[in-house]
C-alpha cells in the first residue's frame, strides 16, 4: 500500500531533493533527521493541545466571569485533592513518555556505527578545516552520500560548535578535547554548516558548506583536492589562490575594504615598498634584508602566516591564529603568488581569464599526463 506521504517522499527522492521537516524544521537530509522530526512533531502536538486547552479556558472564563467591580464571585471549593492529583499525574506520565522517545533518538544519533568513514576536523577562529584520510585538506566538508561519516574534531583556540541543520546534528568543539559526531547523508546537494557556539568577533561568518556527492564523484574530488598543488604549472601557482583564500576570506578582503585583517588589495606593493607600519612603531622596510627579521618580502608574508603575532600591522589587533603546519610551503608560495597577481582576479577572487581557472589547469595537466602514458 502506498500512503500519500510515502508517495510524496518517493517523488522527492526521484527529484533528488530531501523532504522538508514538519513545523518549520529544515529539509531532512540525513538518516536520523526523520526520527528527530518525529519526536519534534509529537512534542509540538502535545504543546498545541495544552496551549489550546489553556487559552480556550482562559478566554471562556474571562468572557463568562467578567463582572463589574463589587460583584461577589460565585465561588468554588478552595481545593480539590483528586483534581490536583490528576493534573499532577497526567502531565507526569506524558513527560516520562516524551523523555523516553527523546532519549532513544539521542542514543541513535550519538553512537557512531562501526566502520564509519573518518574525517578530522579542526576549528579555529574563524574557519573550518577538514582533513581526509588520503591527506587532502579542504575548508568545505565533502562527504559521500549514503555512507556513515564520523567527524573527529578539536579546536585550536576557543569553543566552537559544528552544526548542520539539515542533518540535525550539533557538537561543541572543545579545545583540549577530541569530540566526535556522526551522520549519514541521504541526498546529494549543498547544505549549510554553521558555527553555533559564540567564538568572538567573526562568529557569524564562521560558516561553510557541506557537499554531499555520489561515491565516485566524491572519490574523484577528494583525490584531486589532495594532488591539485602538484598539478600546477610552477609559473602559475596563483591559480590555486582563490581556493586557498577561502580560509582567509572572513578576515581579509580583496576589494580594499577593511575587515578584521588588512585587505590584500595592494598588500604586495606595500610589502615590496616596505611602507607597512606596525603597532610597535617599526616600519617594514627597516626589517627586510640580510640579517634582519625578514629575508625578503616573500619571507615576511610566510612568517606572517606562520606566526601572525610577531608583527601586527598598525590599526589592527592580532586576531589571527597561527597557520603553522596547516599550509604546506608550496601552498604559502601559491598564496604569495596570488597576492602578486591579484590584478588577474576580480574582487571576489574569480579569475578574469578563463585560462586561469584552477579546474581547467588541472584538467589540462591530467590530459597531458594521460597522453604521455
Amino acid at each position, binding site marked *: 500500500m502506498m500512503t500519500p506521504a510515502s508517495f510524496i517522499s518517493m517523488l522527492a527522492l526521484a527529484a533528488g531533493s530531501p523532504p522538508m521537516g514538519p513545523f518549520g524544521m529544515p529539509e531532512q537530509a540525513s538518516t536520523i533527521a526523520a526520527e528527530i522530526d518525529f519526536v519534534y512533531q509529537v512534542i509540538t502536538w502535545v504543546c498545541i493541545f495544552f496551549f489550546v486547552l489553556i487559552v480556550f*479556558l482562559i478566554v471562556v472564563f474571562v468572557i463568562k466571569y467578567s463582572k463589574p467591580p463589587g460583584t461577589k464571585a460565585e465561588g*468554588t471549593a478552595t481545593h480539590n485533592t483528586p483534581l490536583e492529583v490528576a493534573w499532577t499525574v497526567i*502531565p507526569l506520565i506524558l513527560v516520562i513518555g516524551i523523555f523516553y522517545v527523546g532519549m532513544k533518538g539521542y542514543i541513535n544519533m550519538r553512537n557512531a556505527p562501526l566502520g564509519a568513514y573518518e574525517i578530522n576536523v579542526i576549528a579555529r577562529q574563524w574557519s573550518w578545516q577538514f582533513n581526509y584520510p588520503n591527506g587532502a585538506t579542504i575548508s568545505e566538508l565533502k562527504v559521500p552520500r549514503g555512507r556513515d561519516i564520523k567527524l573527529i574534531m578539536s579546536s585550536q583556540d576557543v*569553543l566552537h560548535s559544528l552544526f548542520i541543520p539539515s542533518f540535525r546534528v550539533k557538537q561543541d568543539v572543545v579545545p583540549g578535547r577530541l569530540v566526535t559526531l556522526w551522520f549519514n547523508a541521504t541526498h546529494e546537494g549543498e547544505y549549510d554548516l554553521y558555527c553555533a557556539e559564540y567564538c568572538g568577533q567573526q*562568529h557569524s561568518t564562521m560558516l561553510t558548506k557541506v557537499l554531499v556527492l555520489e561515491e565516485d564523484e566524491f572519490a574523484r574530488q577528494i583525490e584531486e583536492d589532495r594532488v591539485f598543488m602538484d598539478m600546477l604549472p610552477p609559473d602559475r601557482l596563483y591559480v590555486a589562490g582563490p581556493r586557498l583564500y577561502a580560509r582567509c576570506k572572513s578576515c581579509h578582503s580583496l576589494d580594499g575594504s577593511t575587515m578584521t585583517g588588512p585587505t590584500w588589495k595592494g598588500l604586495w606593493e606595500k610589502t615590496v615598498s616596505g611602507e607597512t607600519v606596525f603597532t610597535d612603531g617599526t616600519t617594514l622596510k627597516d626589517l627586510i634584508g640580510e640579517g634582519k627579521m625578514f629575508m625578503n618580502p616573500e619571507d615576511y608574508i610566510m612568517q606572517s602566516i606562520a606566526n601572525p603575532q610577531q608583527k601586527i600591522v598598525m590599526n589592527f589587533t592580532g586576531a589571527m591564529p597561527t597557520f603553522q603546519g596547516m599550509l604546506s610551503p608550496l601552498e604559502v608560495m601559491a598564496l604569495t603568488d596570488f597576492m602578486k597577481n591579484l590584478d588577474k582576479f576580480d574582487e571576489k577572487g574569480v579569475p578574469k581569464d578563463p585560462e586561469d581557472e584552477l579546474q581547467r589547469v588541472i584538467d589540462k595537466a591530467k590530459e597531458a599526463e594521460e597522453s604521455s602514458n
Partner: protein
Amino acid sequence: MSIYGDSTKASSGTNYLTHTRGFLSWALTLDHKRIGVMYLVSVLTAFFFAGMAAMALRLELIAPGEWFLSQDNYNQMFTVHGALMVFLVLIPAVPAAMGNFVLPIMLGAKDVAFPRLNLFSYWLWVTGALFFVLALLTGGLDTGWTFYTPYSIEGDDHMSGAMGGVIPALTGAFVLGFSSIFTGLNFIVTIHRLRPPGMTWFRMPLFLWAIYATAIIQVMATPILGITLALLIVERAFGIGIFNPALGGDPVLYQHFFWFYSHPAVYIMILPGMGIISELISVHSHKHIFGYRFIAFSSVAIAIFGFLVWGHHMFTSGQSPLMNIMFSAITFSVSIPSAIKVFNWLATLYKGSISLNTPMLYALSFLFIFTIGGLTGLHLGTLATDIHLHDTYFVVAHFHYVMMGSAMIAMFGGLHHWWPKITGRMYNETLGRIACGLVFFGFNATFFTQFILGSKGMPRRYADYSAELMGAENFEIFHFWHFWSTIGSFVMALGFFLMLGYLVHSMFKGRQAPDNPWGGGSLEWQCSSPPPHDNFSEPPTVGDCYDYSMLEWDEKIQGYHRREEAATSGE
C-alpha cells in the same frame, strides 16, 4: 470580631514618602519601602539601558549586512544586554524591588529583620552597577553574559574583540551576587522571625512563599557564582590554569560551575513572578486562590529540583551521554510543579468575578506567555530535539518567553497592582490597558517568530546573515522572520514608553488612590495608600488573606472597604 482588625491608616498624618525629606533621608534610609522604591527606580533604569541595547540588536538584524552595527559592536551589545538584564534587572527586579516594598507589609511586620543589611545590599547593587559602567569605559567586553572560557580568558593580544572590561564586569557580577545573597538572607530571617501572631506558614500570601523559596536559592546558589567568577578573575589576571586547556584547565568544568548557579538563578527570576501572579489572579477574580497548598509546595519543589538540572544547558558541550540522559530525565521533573501552578490559576478564574484591570491583563498575558514558554521547554529538555535546537534562536525565544514574557510581565503586573500603594496615586486605566496590549502583541511578534528561526537552524549570537554566507533559500527565510521580529520589538518598546509616560504622569496628576482599589485581602491593603512610615502601629490581626467575602465596592472612593457590620454581626 473581624478577622481583619482595624485599619491603621488613621494612626499618623504622614506617610513613608513624606515622613522625612532630603536626599540623605532616602540614601541612608532603613525603611524597607524606601529601599524598595530605590531598587525599583534603579532596576527600571537598568532595564531601560539593557532594553535600548536590545533595540539596537533588533535594528541591526532587520536587514542583512553590517548596516547599523559592526560585528564588534553587535557582540558587545548582546553582552551588555544579557549581563545587564540578568544581573542588574531580572535577579533583583521582583525580590529586591517588589519584595522589599511588599513583603514586610504583607507579613504584618514593621520592616525586614535586618534593615541596615537591606540598605547595604542596595548600595552593593549600586556598586555592582558601577563596575559594569567601568567595564564599558575600560574597553567593553564581548564574551556574552555567560563569560564562557577560554574565550573570556585569552588576552587582548590574541583577540580582536573588546576584552578590557572582562575583569570589571566579573567583579561587578561578583558584588551583585552578595547583594542578592544578603537580600535573600534578610527575607528568610524576616519570614521566620517577624510574623505577627496569627500569621502561620499557611496563612502567608503565596507571594511570600514564592519569595521564601527564591531566597533559599539566592542564599544557597549564589556563592557558587561568586567562587566561579573569582576563579575566572584569578585565571585571567595571573594565568593560573583552571579552565583554560592551554594551561591544563578544562573549559567544560567552567560550564558546570556556571550553570550550577545560573540554572537555579532562572528560578530566582521566575518564582517571585509566579508569586505575584498568584496574588493578581485571586485578587482580580475576587475569589479564593484554588489549591493554596499545592501552589505553595510547588514553589518549594521548583526551588529544590532547580538545583539538579543544570546539565541541560550542556547537552552538546561534550559531557558524557549518560549525564545528558540523567539531566534530561530530572529536567522534566521541574515541568510538573509549573503545570500544577497553571492549572490552579485556571481553577481560580473559574466562577470568579473577574475585573479586567491593568494588573489582571498582565496576569492573563503571563498565563498565555508562560504556557508557551513552559511548553517549548519540552522541546529543549528532550535530548533528541535539543541537539538541533541548542544555541539557535529557538532557545532565545524560549528563554525570552520565560524571562521577559513571564518574569518581567509579572513584575510589571505587580508594579501596576501595587502602584497605588507605592505612590498613593492611580494611573490612567485606559492607557494602562493599551500599553499592556502593545507589550503583549509586540512581545509575541518579537519572540514567536524566533521559534521558527530557531527550528530553521538560525544560530544565536550571529551579527549578520546574508545570501552570500548561507544559501539563498535559508537567507530568505531568516530575513523574513528577522524582519517581523524587529517590527514586533518596536511595538513592544512603544508600549513600554507609553507605560513610562502615564506612570510618571500619575505621580503628579493621578487621582488619589483609595486604600484598597482592587479589593485585595492581604495586609498591605489595610494600610493607607501610601502606607505610614512604620506600616502598622500595632500588630494587625491576621486572617485568611484570600477570603474576599467582607469586601465591598464603594463607588464614591472607587475602591473597596470592609463591611464592618458583617464583621461584628455576621457568622
